[in-house]
């Protein structure tokens, strides 16, 4: 019983320190961190894990184990008006801390827990001058390039289906 209480207290303390640390980070909006977190969130899990295998990661402590939940996606009435609830999407999140102190947060689309964990570790490493370049070159940039390439092909396929109208001129004399 004593052990159970201790472990609960420990867990509570851990959560406390973890939430205390992230009170107001709104000044970070528009920073490169937003960019890499988005890249990690959108990338297919298989691609993230494949690239991750080629990287060396430092020791980290899990602050919040990967957990799957949902985010309600909101549309806008008429396309640009007041919000309404369209439907949910699955999302998985995870939080870790490196031995050197950087805290990483992973929020990824879908239910892949390894994906969320890797996103959290990568986020922490991107904040460390020691690991930043390695993760940027070995993970973030290849993911972003793959995403851009996929987008580019879709855009060109769409363009190929654009209708080019022409008007028939009828020659009444003929």
């Amino acid at each position: 019983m004593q052990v159970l209480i201790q472990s609960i207290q420990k867990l509570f303390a851990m959560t406390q320190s973890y939430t205390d640390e992230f009170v107001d980070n709104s000044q970070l909006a528009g920073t490169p961190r937003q960019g890499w977190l988005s890249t990690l969130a959108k990338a297919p899990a298989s691609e993230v894990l494949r690239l991750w295998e080629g990287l060396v990661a430092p020791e980290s402590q899990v602050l919040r184990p990967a957990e799957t939940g949902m985010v309600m996606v909101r549309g806008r009435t008429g396309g640009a008006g007041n919000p309404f609830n369209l439907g949910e999407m699955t999302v998985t999140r995870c939080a870790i801390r490196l031995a050197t102190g950087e805290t990483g947060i992973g929020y990824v689309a879908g239910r892949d827990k390894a994906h969320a964990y890797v996103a959290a570790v990568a986020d922490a490493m991107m904040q460390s001058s020691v690991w930043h370049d390695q993760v940027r070159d070995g993970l973030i940039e290849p993911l972003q390039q793959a995403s851009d390439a996929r987008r580019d092909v879709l855009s060109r396929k769409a363009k190929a289906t654009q209708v080019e109208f022409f008007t028939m001129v009828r020659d009444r004399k003929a």
Partner: protein
Amino acid sequence: MAYVAVKGGERAITNAHAWLGEMRRGDVAVPELSVAQIREQMGLAVDRVMAEGSCYDPDLAALAIKQARGDLPEAIFLLRAYRTTLPRFGASTPIETADMAVQRRVSAAFKDIPGGQVLGPTFDYTHRLLDFKLAADGGHEVPPAQVSEEVMPTQLATIAQVFAHEGLLEGDPVTDTSAQPYDLTREPMAFPADRDQRLQALARGDEGFLLSLAYSSQRGWGSTHPLCGEIRMGEVSVGFTPDELGFEIELADLPMTECIMLSGFAGSAEQAPQYTRGYGLTFGHNERKAMSMSIVDRALRGRELGEEGQAPCQDEEFVLYHSDVVEASGFVQHLKLPHYVDFQADLQFLRRLRREFFDAKAKALAEQAEHMKEAAE
């Protein structure tokens, strides 16, 4: 009370489910479908299950379709049930469909819409002839899609933006940034329903039901004389602000279909005549649903626009109470659960009524005979 506890069916149920499993698998000489195959090759079924299941997750939807033996309302039920097991992290920033990475965009109303008519991967203009090449076992080569040397513009103007300066189309102003939109997953259906509540219900609503309602409207039962202003399909970025970050990140680029239906409005003393709009939006590529939704959305705005309509598509209680496939299917299909007590009570009542009927009839006959006898005397 409609039900009665019945015991003794466990063995029958276990055996029935085992047989169901066998039927689901089908002929074992035929290779089993993988979830990935369903996700990739039954994409529109997956899209429908996600839209009406109200949960975007292609792998879960494909699994549900496999488990349901391709019965889409059953798959939608499975997905809805699963989502109740998950916590909610929050709500996204309202999406901007004007920024959609468009794969398809057509306007039936305006031929020269800026950005052009882009057909995308559509069934339109196919001849609807069965293609027996697809029946060949393997080795069927798919000719690659054409890839243009040009790319699409990063943003295509919407029909609303195109005509905004003239005021020919009603706007959709953001009138309330503080209020949380109605959430049917947390609150019960209530009336009168505002447009946010109606749009959520329609987005989750059964495609077949909305299609029929839209069709009935077009045929004159509450017609709004719609013109298809714009349909667009493509990927829309979903932004979310996690509490622990305090700033927004993009979570996903989700494929969505949007439809804006135009409908005439004569105007009023304060309001110049202009087009009003019906709105449809769904997860995935789901054009029939988005179009139907936009027609029904417009029909349901009768109260707001001073239209005195009595047609089914204009009656919000009728539409919203009956649009959910899980609720509708559940209520119709609950009739196959044991109603033994109802039936027994009915039987007793019916027997008594019949006894009274025949007694009364016999009595009448006897009185008639008596009467005739008296008359004869």
